[in-house]
């Protein structure tokens, strides 16, 4: 016989009593372990998605609209023999079924070869052409069917250049997929973080190149690095093996000179600087297509005008001289002078000193074509000979250089072919694009310089092209022309962790259920413990020191907690399965349609089980804390429920009334201050205010309840009615009553309060300060839109019916692809997608409202134009994001910075200067368009649009939307009503709230069960009392009413306290523009909670009254 025997026998003997305790502990453990394993599963799923989307790729060179030679991959492998690489042609597209039955936007078309699939997760290759599962599902594709692609057509020059062709920006390609690429076959390939793979088409690279007339070029280079090789070494290898062709540069012979030209028309500044650093005489050339040369009434339409630039190089400034430039233009040609060739001078009848007006198209803000003019003085004329007769001064402008005649011109500019005269046609036939005039370098730069550069060629004397090329490659860094590798594995691994800790989230969502289970555990334990009060008394009487008695019961609690945690842990795995099933079906909105895999980490289960064990033990220990104060004699002769165990210090735990009242006042004032002062739009702060104010009011309510329940009872007061007697009785076991009240109050507060935050459908006519910004639609294009949709000509280009879209206005946004940062993406975004906007457009509209700004401003959009000082040598750019994305997905706030890399591989920082309140701009960070162009000069056109249709009613708006979708179908214009977009984001929040309410509801159910048990327990303890009442002539119905009024009173106290707390806590939400008060739903919930509680009370009282037979009288 030892303490162990005593413990074991006790456990066995009271097994039935302990069953409930173990059950409560098991529920707590199951919920806790289940929540943690949900976290494991989400983490595992995201890590798996991340691993599947990049396969064996460690680094990638993404050149976007630049196209390097596909041989670069071989060159890299030559430099780093154990590195495998693949050159991929990656373009955006829109895909549709050949019968037009379904369409998929933002499709990635990958021109690949076997090298690509060697990097796939399973190193397996599907038969080509192939599509991935997402596209197959989206198009409802069936084997053997063809799909039609409209692929972004590489134009060779940046789309934002004035001369870029705006129309026909897509090329059609019909493919008949023969396979669906599996995950092992790169079916999830993507370089952006996200749980959903982009819809993808895989075709032979050569097929795609041919369809796009691109030649053997690619724009994405993937590398699987040998162990120990860093991305930096890969960049070194690139430096060693690349060629000018990879930078779309070429050197051609032009007489006795060499000419460096770019496939992108203008030479980038970095290239010009590199050339200037060589010890070679250089001459720059720039040639531009002008609309008109006019002197007085006479004018010449559509001509080339050049500037021959004396460039300074390491060898001096005599390049232009040696190449005969000054035979064409005077050395001292001023910025306001022009030299005409003989033909033009004659046509214009111009002589030296005449004023000539030069007109040309430039690109204004928002990619608007703007005709500009400059007046120049005619310096003289030159014969069409020598350099002045050099046709190659005209770069290969698309739509011009290969035209047989002027009528066949198709430049990217509006050309009025009627203005072309016969003599112009004759000039084109004789001289092609030979410049008709020459201006100074300064004038050319001022007129035609853009972010793409200003020189169209650099010439140098000699025929040593290879030496010139080698020299250039020696000084030019591939990074300067946008060719640089970036590590994709580290960000992918980082994105493999969830932006939201789902384990923590589900613990948060289940906290009330866990609390209810623990309260139940504590209550049942204390009931069991109380029934053994005489045993405690005996131990004390026999000389057991109180700590030893406490330890004895503590061991018992530990064993019960351990059994509960063990059973609960197993149940927790089933709970996880249920939650994952819910997330896959009912709650799909919460996880952005991600597929989640069940995954268990033994350590997590151990942590969950241990935590549940600890909290269950604590819940039980809480009931033992006052044990030592019980008197042995009192305990020894006590009966269960007479409170002998808790006899204490004489004050009987009665709270100080004055202090309590002061505390209640302070708590209520604190709650009021919180709800009045907090900004309802400020994400975390608003959430904090809800819970803070709610907790304060709840605490105040419970302090009052405690005060009420412990009010000294007058022994001589006539209770007058049974109900009053019941209320009086509720004070009998104040501790139990308070526990039940607290449980009901907290449950009511959470379930009802949270319900108010459910977002209803966004009204169609939501104002400009709303989350839609007052816009009717939000649209994304799969292929950049170059045409200006705000003008009729731009709309005509897409064949839009003017009468349907006349009242429509657009705010176009530039897009730099990156990670989706909205709540629809589970993965942690590493470099969120960027959008460039003209802040003035949104500022003038007063669109959207702000949750927070870096400084108080009337017009926070203007913050985007702020020039911010560099930090650590890195440029800092102002950015605005949606408060939801910032707070929950990016874990950032106003004033924080994010690190980015620009198009040339230069690091820069985005500083959050303002946060938008709950808006349709979730998922992206917004910067000023001007900054965007500087950072990503080659990102041309617009791929996102905020669209307003103010002039019409809902029917007109719908018609306009349909027309835009139809007209812009080829660019994959995915248009959605702004309200619906906002509702989609809200759906995530609403889904979480639903989960919370469901789990909270389960908690209330458990709490109500606790209430029922308290009722039953109390009734059983009072069997004699109830039996006496029957002996005195009370009917069973009146006894039930007596009991029900007692516990109904407790239920009502709990409900009112919880509802009061919820009413105060939602004040910030009501002050904000956000949710409408769902009073009906709230009332319904309250009624449901009350009804549930009443059912338990009635059930328990019925059972108690039935047990209160006259035999119970003998126990008195």
């Amino acid at each position, binding site marked *: *016989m030892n*303490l162990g025997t*005593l413990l074991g026998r006790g456990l066995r003997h009271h097994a039935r009593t302990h069953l409930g305790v173990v059950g409560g502990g098991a529920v707590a453990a199951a919920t806790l372990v289940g929540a943690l394993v949900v976290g494991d599963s989400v983490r595992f799923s995201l890590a798996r998605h991340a691993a599947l989307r990049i396969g064996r790729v460690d680094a990638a060179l993404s050149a976007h609209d630049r196209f390097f030679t596909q041989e670069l991959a071989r060159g890299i492998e030559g430099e780093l023999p154990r590195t495998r690489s693949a050159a991929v042609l990656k373009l955006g597209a829109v895909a549709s079924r050949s019968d037009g039955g379904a369409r998929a936007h933002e499709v990635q078309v990958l021109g690949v070869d076997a090298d690509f699939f060697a990097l796939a997760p399973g190193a397996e290759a599907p038969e080509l052409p192939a599509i991935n599962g997402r596209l197959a599902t989206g198009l409802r594709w069936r084997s053997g069917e063809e799909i039609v692609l409209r692929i972004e057509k590489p134009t060779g020059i940046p789309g934002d250049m004035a001369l870029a062709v705006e129309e026909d920006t897509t090329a059609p390609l019909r493919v008949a997929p023969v396979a669906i690429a599996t995950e092992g076959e790169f079916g999830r390939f993507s370089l952006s973080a996200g749980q959903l793979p982009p819809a993808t088409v895989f075709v032979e690279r050569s097929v795609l190149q041919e369809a796009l007339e691109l030649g053997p070029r690619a724009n994405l280079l993937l590398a699987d690095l040998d162990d120990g090789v860093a991305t930096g070494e890969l960049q070194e290898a690139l430096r060693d093996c690349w060629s000018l062709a990879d930078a779309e540069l070429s050197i051609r012979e032009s007489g006795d000179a060499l000419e460096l030209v770019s496939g992108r028309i203008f030479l980038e500044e970095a290239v010009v600087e590199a050339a200037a650093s060589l010890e070679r005489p250089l001459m720059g050339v720039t040639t531009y297509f002008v609309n008109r040369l006019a002197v007085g009434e006479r004018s010449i339409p559509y001509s080339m005008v050049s500037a021959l630039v004396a460039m300074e190089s390491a060898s001096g400034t005599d390049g232009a001289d040696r190449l005969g430039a000054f035979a064409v233009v005077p050395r001292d040609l001023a910025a306001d002078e022009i030299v005409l060739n003989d033909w033009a001078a004659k046509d214009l009848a111009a002589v030296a000193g005449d004023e000539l007006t030069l007109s040309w198209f430039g690109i204004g803000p928002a990619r608007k074509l703007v005709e500009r003019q400059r007046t120049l003085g005619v310096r003289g004329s030159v014969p069409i000979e020598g350099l002045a007769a050099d046709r190659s001064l005209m770069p290969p402008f698309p739509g011009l250089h290969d035209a047989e005649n002027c009528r066949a011109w198709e430049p990217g500019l509006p050309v009025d072919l009627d203005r072309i005269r016969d003599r112009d046609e004759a000039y084109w036939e004789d001289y092609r694009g030979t410049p008709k005039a020459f201006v100074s370098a300064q004038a050319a730069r001022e007129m035609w310089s853009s972010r793409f550069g200003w020189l169209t060629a650099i010439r140098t004397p000699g025929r040593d092209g290879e030496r010139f090329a080698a020299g250039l490659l020696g000084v030019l860094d591939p990074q300067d022309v946008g060719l640089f590798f970036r590590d994709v594995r580290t960000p992918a691994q980082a994105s493999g962790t969830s932006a939201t800790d789902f384990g923590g989230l589900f613990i948060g969502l289940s906290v009330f259920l866990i609390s209810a289970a623990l309260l139940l555990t504590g209550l049942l334990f204390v009931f069991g413990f109380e029934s053994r009060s005489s045993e405690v*008394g*005996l131990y004390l*009487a026999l*000389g057991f*020191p109180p700590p*030893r008695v406490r330890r004895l019961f503590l061991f018992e609690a530990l064993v019960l907690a351990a059994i509960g945690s063990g059973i609960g842990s197993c149940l927790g795995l089933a709970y996880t399965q249920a939650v994952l099933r819910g997330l896959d079906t009912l709650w799909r909105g919460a996880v952005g349609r991600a597929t989640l895999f069940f995954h268990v980490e033994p350590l997590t289960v151990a942590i969950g089980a241990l935590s549940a064990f600890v909290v269950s033990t604590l819940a039980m220990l809480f009931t033992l804390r006052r044990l030592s104060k019980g008197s042995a004699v009192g305990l020894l002769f006590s009966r269960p429920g007479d409170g002998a165990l808790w006899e204490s210090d004489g004050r009987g735990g009665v709270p100080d009334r004055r202090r309590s009242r002061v505390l209640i006042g302070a708590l209520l004032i604190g709650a009021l201050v919180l709800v009045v002062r907090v900004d309802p739009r400020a994400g975390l702060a608003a959430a904090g205010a809800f819970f803070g104010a709610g907790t304060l009011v709840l605490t105040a309510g419970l302090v009052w309840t405690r005060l009420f329940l412990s009010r000294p009872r007058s022994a001589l007061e006539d209770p007058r009615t049974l109900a009053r007697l019941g209320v009086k009785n509720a004070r009998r076991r104040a501790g139990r009553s308070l526990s039940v009240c607290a449980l009901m109050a907290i449950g009511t507060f959470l379930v009802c309060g949270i319900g108010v935050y459910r977002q209803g459908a966004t009204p169609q006519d939501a104002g400009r300060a709303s989350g839609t910004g007052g816009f009717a639609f939000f649209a994304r294009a799969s292929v950049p839109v170059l045409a200006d949709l705000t003008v009729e000509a731009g709309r005509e280009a897409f064949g839009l019916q003017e009468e349907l879209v006349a009242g429509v206005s657009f705010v176009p946004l530039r897009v730099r692809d990156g990670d989706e940062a909205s709540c629809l993406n589970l993965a942690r975004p590493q470099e969120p997608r960027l959008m460039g906007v003209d802040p003035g457009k949104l500022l003038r509209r007063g669109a959207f409202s702000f949750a927070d700004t870096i400084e108080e401003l009337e017009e926070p959009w203007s913050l985007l134009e702020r020039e911010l000082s560099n930090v650590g040598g890195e440029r800092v750019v102002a950015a605005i994001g949606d408060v939801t994305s910032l707070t929950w997905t990016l874990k950032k706030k106003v004033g924080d910075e994010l690190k980015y890399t620009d198009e040339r591989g230069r690091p820069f920082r985005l500083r959050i200067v303002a946060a938008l309140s709950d808006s349709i701009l979730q998922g992206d960070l917004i910067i000023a368009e001007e900054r965007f162009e500087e950072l990503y000069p080659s990102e041309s056109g617009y791929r996102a649009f905020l669209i307003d249709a103010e002039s019409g009613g809902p029917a007109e708006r719908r018609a306009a939307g349909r027309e835009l979708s139809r007209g812009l179908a080829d660019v994959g214009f995915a248009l959605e009503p702004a309200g619906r977009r906002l509702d989609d984001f809200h759906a995530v929040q609403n889904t979480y709230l639903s989960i919370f309410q469901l789990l909270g509801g389960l908690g209330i159910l458990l709490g109500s069960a606790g209430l029922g048990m308290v009722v039953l327990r109390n009734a059983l303890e009072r069997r004699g009392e109830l039996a006496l009442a029957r002996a005195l002539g009370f009917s069973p119905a009146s006894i039930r009413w007596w009991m029900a009024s007692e516990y109904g009173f407790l239920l009502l106290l709990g409900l009112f306290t919880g509802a009061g707390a919820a009413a105060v806590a939602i004040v910030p939400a009501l002050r904000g523009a956000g949710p409408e008060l769902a009073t009906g739903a709230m009332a319904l919930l309250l009624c449901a909670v009350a009804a549930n509680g009443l059912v338990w009370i009635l059930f328990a009282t019925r059972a108690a009254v039935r047990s209160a037979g006259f035999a119970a009288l003998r126990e008195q």
Partner: protein
Amino acid sequence: MTPLLELENVAKTFAPVEGCANTVLSGIDLEIGASETLAIVGPSGSGKSTLLFLLGTLETPTTGRVLWEGRDLAELSTGRLADFRNREIGFIFQEHHLLPQLSAFENVLVPTLASKAGRDRSLLAQRAEGLLATVGLKDRMAHRPAQLSGGERQRVACVRALINAPRLLLADEPTGSLDRRSADELTDLLLSLNESEGVALVTVTHAPKLAQRMQRGFELLDGSLCEAGRETGT
């Protein structure tokens, strides 16, 4: 010679009810010698049990002193007092208070688990067996309380009270819930144990037969204790 236990002017007052003080005992003086047997009688509510619990240190006096071999027990800490009670005092209650989950033998051994002091468990087991045999329960040792008669349970409770070889045995209405025959047997048993174990015996009882068999007799009336022929308090 110093008495084993001595009460000096002891009074006990409980918390007032509706403003009226509730004095149960007042001015009690009592000396109990080693191996002495005493009976305390009195009407219901006279404070007999309270007096017994004061003697057994389960209650503390409101005023006055309780001395054990001349030492004031109020000087002992709660832990030491529990240890003292475990070693020196044995209790027998009207209700047996046996633990239903344990056998008779195990119930007897429960008091030996109260202290951590290293004791030879086999000796204790032998003693338990011996004592149970003495009270005629050798064949019933493995039985649970529910399987024993009322008299047997009370005998187990007696053995439990003696397992630690206390010097004072306090019995509160030990025969109160027994039939006459069982009551007589228990009385015989208590007196024989007093003799064989040398333990002083104080019994609170309503049973005149039991009281008469004690060496000394006291009556508790209105909070005062009167020995046969003299009053010890007012």
